[in-house]
């Protein structure tokens, strides 16, 4: 059902899109600014010189490469473990009847309301007792509980017609077989959205990775970004260059994945 949209709607779309795109655009343009270009009235949108000095600055930073690698590794680990745990738990919560099910579900959901800031010291203590300081396990440990994803995934699984599951059972499919053969393929869209969401969150986390790592070779990228400009500096160019560098792959990933996500979602089962 492809139709042309109403001109007013089109205009609104363009306004919305410009507002959303503006921060991306500004970060990219500001990454070419020199120190003095950040302090002019009225503020500039375009840099005077399109030179890459801010990018050279981060390219020559000796800490950056290992920070990026660490962020990618912890991002992948955290996102994939979260997804596996979310699928398992949502499967149990939506298909099994067992004593204490609602209680357990509430138990998981309520964790959403205890902000991680309140738990920093206690969790540091646990990680240190477990001997996980300076390990990837320590960095991702507190991110592994996918509470909000479990809420959504459970709803999604519940909306899958029971006849599909019954027929799978007739064929003698076990739990894991059903999950891998049926559940994962039909939830591909929502799962890949979650994967991306988890990855972005872990890749960009700051305070917790800083707390549980002491060695520079275990550090993640956000710590590297704060390292570029110091509090009193007025030169934000290198910071924006770093932000732009880590944004580009994510933006490309989203553009590539959008089609798959949207087409799978609209072909899929009633979502929630």
């Amino acid at each position: 059902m492809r139709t042309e949209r109403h001109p007013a709607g089109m205009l609104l779309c363009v306004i919305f899109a410009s507002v959303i795109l503006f921060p991306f655009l500004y970060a990219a343009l500001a990454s070419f600014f020199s120190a003095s270009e950040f302090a002019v009235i009225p503020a500039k949108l375009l840099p005077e010189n399109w030179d890459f000095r801010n990018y050279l600055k981060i390219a020559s930073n000796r800490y950056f490469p290992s920070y990026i690698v660490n962020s990618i590794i912890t991002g992948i680990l955290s996102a994939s473990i979260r997804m596996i745990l979310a699928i398992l738990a949502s499967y149990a919560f939506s298909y099994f009847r067992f004593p204490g099910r609602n209680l357990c579900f509430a138990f998981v959901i309520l964790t959403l309301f205890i902000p991680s800031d309140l738990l920093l010291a206690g969790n540091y203590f646990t990680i240190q007792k477990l001997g996980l300081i300076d390990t990837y396990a320590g960095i991702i440990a507190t991110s592994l509980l996918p509470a909000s994803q479990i809420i959504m995934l459970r709803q999604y699984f519940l909306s899958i017609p029971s006849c599909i599951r019954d027929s799978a059972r007739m064929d003698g499919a076990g739990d894991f077989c059903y999950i891998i053969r049926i559940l994962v393929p039909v939830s591909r869209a929502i799962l890949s959205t979650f994967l991306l969401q988890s990855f972005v969150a872990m890749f960009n986390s700051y305070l917790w990775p800083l707390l549980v790592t002491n060695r520079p070779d275990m550090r993640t990228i956000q710590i590297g970004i704060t390292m570029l400009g110091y509090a009193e500096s007025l030169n934000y160019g290198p910071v924006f260059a770093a932000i732009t560098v880590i944004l580009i792959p994510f933006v490309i990933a989203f553009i590539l994945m959008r089609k798959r996500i949207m087409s799978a979602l609209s072909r899929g089962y009633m979502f929630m």
Partner: protein
Amino acid sequence: MRKTSLIAFMLMIPLALFARGSAEDDGITTITWWHSNSGIIQEATDALVEKFNETTGAENGIRVDAVYQGSANDTLTKVKTVMQAGDLSQLPDLVQLDATGVTDMSTYGNVYFIDELAADQGEDLSFMLEHALESMRYKGKIIALPFNASTILFYYNKTAFEEAGFDAPQTLDELTEMAKVLTQRDKDGKVTRYTIASVPTTYELCAFIGMQHGLSYITDMSNGHDGTPTKTVFRQEGTLKAFLEKWRALYETGGLSNLTSGVSAQFAAGQTLSMLASTSNLTSVLEAVDGRFEVGVAPLMKVNEEATGGVNLGGGALFTFHSTPEKESAVWTFMKFLTSAESQLEWHIATGYLPVNRHTYEMEEYKAHCKENPLFQVASDQLLASNPDVTGLWIPNAYDVYYSFQSNIRAMLEENIDIDETVNRMADEIDGYLDEFNRQNSNKH
């Protein structure tokens, strides 16, 4: 194919999870230094450490690892978390913190006072600048080694000041007179160019109160340097009132903007003609102004003629802890290297921080550098002319104290509240925080 790679990936997860960088152990004493130096300051830090590792360190079998731990705040958070978890083996050998860290650090029993460390190594701290030592004196002993030292400074738009025929103001009264000329308005009376932008709070008041009568304090216990403060003293001594009277007069010219953040950017953009900021901002301010106008700096103006105490030394200092004899001796060796006259000169040239070694000021290279960069000389001249006993404020609930000053001064100006009433409010609020803190921590020691 897809399945195999998936399984291979799953197998790699546990391996990656517990991977740890390899730790080497080759008979060399390794010193870990946590700091919050970023940007150009980090480059200077790394350069000093590299030089040490190649020279003195290599000769004595010592290696220093400088590790960036986020902002000064984050570094303190980290140290506190480690302390609370109780595993002191996770502590670094050296940690660089600013004034906000002292109150916390003073409660930890294993902090090694620097004068005691020096004495135990058969040496002393006589090479250090007196102002630097006094800035870190806690209950008579030096709690941390001053390292990145700075003071407050008056920055002004020299081009605009000279156009009006003005030099830098010596007193707040002079600034008020200048503001009547310098402040510009459009035809609707809206101010388009302020003379100064600031809402004074702890940092500014340490100097504006500290300088009065040659030496004054905000609280008892010498601003917390003789132990945790129990009450404020600015009400009884009338020091805050003396300052606020001048400040209100300045506000009444219309040339004072109550701006709480982004002041440097406004200054660099030419929208405000002066500001109060740390000497350590000088390099970045010059970079941001980029010759659009001439930047001038001057000693902080006096509150009145009797306010001759000058300014306090602020910035960061290095804390260390009791450990093994080898480590303690290695820490001392490194500290001596960092505060040597040569290292301090290098550090000063690279970052603009004031040298903490008094011999640096006598070096020919230092004098030559000052001649080429007269703005940097102003900062050190101001420091050397100040009373070393004028110190920064070490107070628990520092964040609340900061807001108490800031909110009440702004309210006084914008809601036209009486000065005595304002002083009373601040004194009552801060005394309240101190009472509560001392109640919670009373049965300690």
